[in-house]
């Protein structure tokens, strides 16, 4: 039974600041295909949470349906998870987030789940600036139903049977940026160096943090002619910058030459450091980010890294003016106005 993992851990395994070992952030053994990009993303999530010293139970993971949406079983088994309805993770997340604003919310979705059946909910979660990390494990095909093209398959990309895709692919990062997402990034499952700081920064961002991650499907979409294969992605990546994430308590020790990099201070006091920026791009300027994204796309490359961040982001609870206390902790004394108030209401209907 592959899903039974050994519980033995080396007693001298290193621990993070709150005393958890990396193993405390792991999940069940994956039942995805060997070599699946999604497993690398799961590993990056584990790494990020460990390094961020997140209490596992203070994070909630919600997914839709599909291979990607199965992935949350394979990390953070001490966190509550919800494998919900195809394409509907954003709405479930909206409700969950409203119920308790104190947890960290990690949404996991796929390209079918987000770009097709769930495209409406995706866009509306962006509009609300829901405080969550939204990860799309993007492989350009439907894995669980055996390899049909998805809506993110690029125009001209070849399916396993050799047919060229004649439809325009949806670029989710472009869409997120147009819709006003306050944190937009793209990465590659094979680039853990880039992915881990992105996930950490996304978790610290107060608002909708979107990471589109190209995550090759080894079984149905990893052949020559596919634009979402490991080798094609590796050969066509152009990173916006090198990225580092510095949590709020850590002292900043590295100094950059002026003009070399940018520091973006986040709401919680942590910092994102971006090095080696292209000269005409400002990651906090939506227009310049959109321009950069399109320019790189036109050159046939895939722009990765942090694409845009709004440091002034106001998340959904601020927009809704909800109380600081989690709504799920409120009881009769906070919620029920009582019979005197009811009699006043009655009187206004006589």
């Amino acid at each position, binding site marked *: 039974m592959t*899903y039974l993992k050994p519980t033995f851990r080396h007693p001298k395994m290193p621990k993070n600041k709150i005393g958890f070992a990396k193993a405390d952030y792991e999940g*069940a053994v994956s039942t995805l295909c060997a070599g699946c990009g999604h497993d690398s993303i799961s590993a990056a999530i584990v790494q990020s949470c460990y390094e961020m010293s997140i*209490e*596992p*139970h*203070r994070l*909630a993971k*919600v997914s839709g349906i599909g291979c990607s949406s199965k992935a*949350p*079983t394979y990390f953070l*088994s*001490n*966190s*509550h*998870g*919800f*494998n*919900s*309805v195809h394409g*509907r993770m*954003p*709405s*479930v*997340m*909206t*409700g*969950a*987030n*409203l*119920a*308790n604003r*104190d*947890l960290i919310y990690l949404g996991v979705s796929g390209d079918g789940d987000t770009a097709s059946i769930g495209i*409406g*909910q995706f866009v*509306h979660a962006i509009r*609300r600036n829901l405080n969550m990390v939204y990860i799309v494990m993007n492989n350009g095909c439907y894995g669980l139903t055996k390899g049909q093209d998805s809506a993110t398959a690029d125009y001209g990309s070849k399916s396993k049977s050799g047919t060229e895709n004649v439809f325009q692919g949806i670029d989710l990062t472009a869409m997120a940026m147009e819709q006003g997402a306050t944190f937009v990034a793209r990465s590659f499952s094979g680039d853990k160096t880039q992915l881990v700081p992105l996930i950490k920064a996304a978790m610290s961002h107060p608002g909708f943090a979107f990471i589109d991650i190209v995550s090759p499907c080894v079984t149905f979409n990893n052949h020559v002619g596919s634009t979402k294969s490991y080798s094609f992605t590796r050969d066509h990546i152009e990173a916006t910058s090198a990225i580092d994430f510095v949590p709020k308590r850590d002292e900043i020790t590295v100094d950059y030459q002026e003009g070399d990099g940018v520091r973006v201070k986040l709401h919680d006091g942590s910092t994102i450091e971006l090095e080696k920026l292209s000269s005409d791009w400002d990651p906090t300027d939506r227009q310049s980010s959109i321009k950069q994204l399109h320019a790189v796309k036109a050159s046939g490359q895939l722009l990765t890294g942090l694409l845009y961040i709004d440091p002034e982001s106001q998340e959904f609870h601020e927009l*809704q*003016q*909800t*109380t*600081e206390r989690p*709504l*799920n902790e*409120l*009881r*009769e004394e*906070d*919620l*029920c*106005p*009582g*019979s005197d*108030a*009811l*009699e006043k*209401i*009655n009187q206004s*209907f*006589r």
Partner: protein
Amino acid sequence: MQKLSAVNDFVIRFANVNGSGSSSANEIFAKAIFRMGIPMSPKNVFPSNIQGLPTWYEVRVSEKGYMGRREGVDIMVSLNPQSMTRDVEDVAPGGYFVYDNSKPLLKEFIREDVTYIGIPMIQMSIANYTNPRQQQLFKNIIYVGALVELLGIEMAVMKGIIADQFAKKPKLIPPNDLALDLGANYVKEHYTCPLPLHVKRLDANGDSILMDGNTATGIGGIYGGATVVSWYPITPSTSVVNAFESYAHKLRVDPETGKRNFAVVQSEDELAAIGIVVGATWNGARAFTATSGPGISLMSEFLGLAYFAELPVTLVNVQRAGPSTGMPTRTQQADILASAYASHGDTRHILLFPSTPEECFQFAAKALDLADRFQTPVIIMSDLDLGMNKHMSPPLKWDETRKYDLGKVLDAEALENTEEYGRYLDVDEDGICYRTLPGAHPTKGAFFTRGTARDEMARYTEDGAAYKRIVDRLMKKWETAKQRVPGPELYQSGNQSSAGVIFFGTTTYSAMEASDMLKADGFDLDMMRIAAFPFNDEVEKFVESHDYVFVVEQNRDAQFRSLLINELDVAPSKLIPVLNYDGMPITADHIRNEIENSPILSLVNGKTQKTS
């Protein structure tokens, strides 16, 4: 011609143009009768339109307290040339036709058996008010003023309502009072007032309120402790959430910080609306959504997930006629089966059937409790008539000692003391398991929520035996629920007849009036109102112990009857459908006629005749 003559017993219908401001004038009229202590029931028949199409407002005045719709119009107040042909035809012989005689009435509208009362409404309005919008609005108040004298309404009561309504805009009181006087003085000069058909003060309304069901449902959500509410606008359910939101702004905002103890999300569609509810309850908040027929269809997928994943959902279904636009502004009880068995797989949901605004309030709070207790969807089955029309209702009442039933939720302390936690272990053997909330405990109680494919410990499995154990337990939970949902209401002690009548929701008004009519005709049938699904033993006993049962409902396919047949394993021939599905609320006459014309009644005739 014999003019209709009665005190406190008539139907008046207003024929208006949608968007002309008539409905508030008509409501003022209705409220005056209510405040005179006379039982009355208003119904708004409106089009899918904001401006221009015909709309009718009907008030039944009934000293005996019959609140269902009655056929026949005794007084027509005609303000819409578009519908005038039909409006003239609809007046009962001997009835009255009130119209604007600023221009003469065409001959084709003259009937010999109708009394015509012309009032130069628009002329008077133009003469007294300057701006065109005011001229239109005050024309409405002018006819209300005329009706004050024609029907013997107390002017002080009417002006009191105006004063209440414009308490915050006192400048508007004098021009409204003037309009009332213009109408009243004109008819006093030109006609004998009051008409033979009129009202007289009574003291029959006690502490009743005049409220629409949707408002009551929204307030029920506040009192029941809902904190997350999401919906997608759809007639006739929109006003449920509007009411919740407007009362929440008054009653749920921290006076010190200005922060809200609630969140309302107008979602992108009904799929998201229920998704938000599911997410919120999964995370421990009380949440509800409100919708109508098409929304139920869209929400069906999530209802299935919530049923299998065992998550609370409170859903208000304000039923209407069919899909699309047009008839959906008319009432029906036509989502019974779609709601009871909504979704894929073996699913069944708790339904509550309120029949008054007070019950809308109670059931909204009750539904939140039941949903938490049974970790399952609970659907409140209201309808357009109940939801959008004002009804005389007992006042809303809240028991101060009442505590929310949050069901079986293990908190950190309970988890600390639990040796082995399994989300789907039936520890108490009532089919209801213990759930935990995200964030509760660092190392205990976390699990992965899925629709199916899990064992008692919430571990992934595709083992058929585990699936079977889970769905069988869900049936056990259903059996437990039978004893906890509101039971039926019986209107006689013990069986008086071998035939019974079953009804629910807004059908109750007319069914009870029909019962009196049937009694007068010598048929004393046993009456039972059903308030919830699953049906409990009392319902089963009632059906079992009668030879025939008439099932009265407002849809074409006798859906409630099908539900009874399916759930209670009754021979179909035993249940006789009595149906109404033209979009107008069912009438007592219709029920009486259907029952008395049924060949079945002759079979039980002897037995149903009063023997005393």
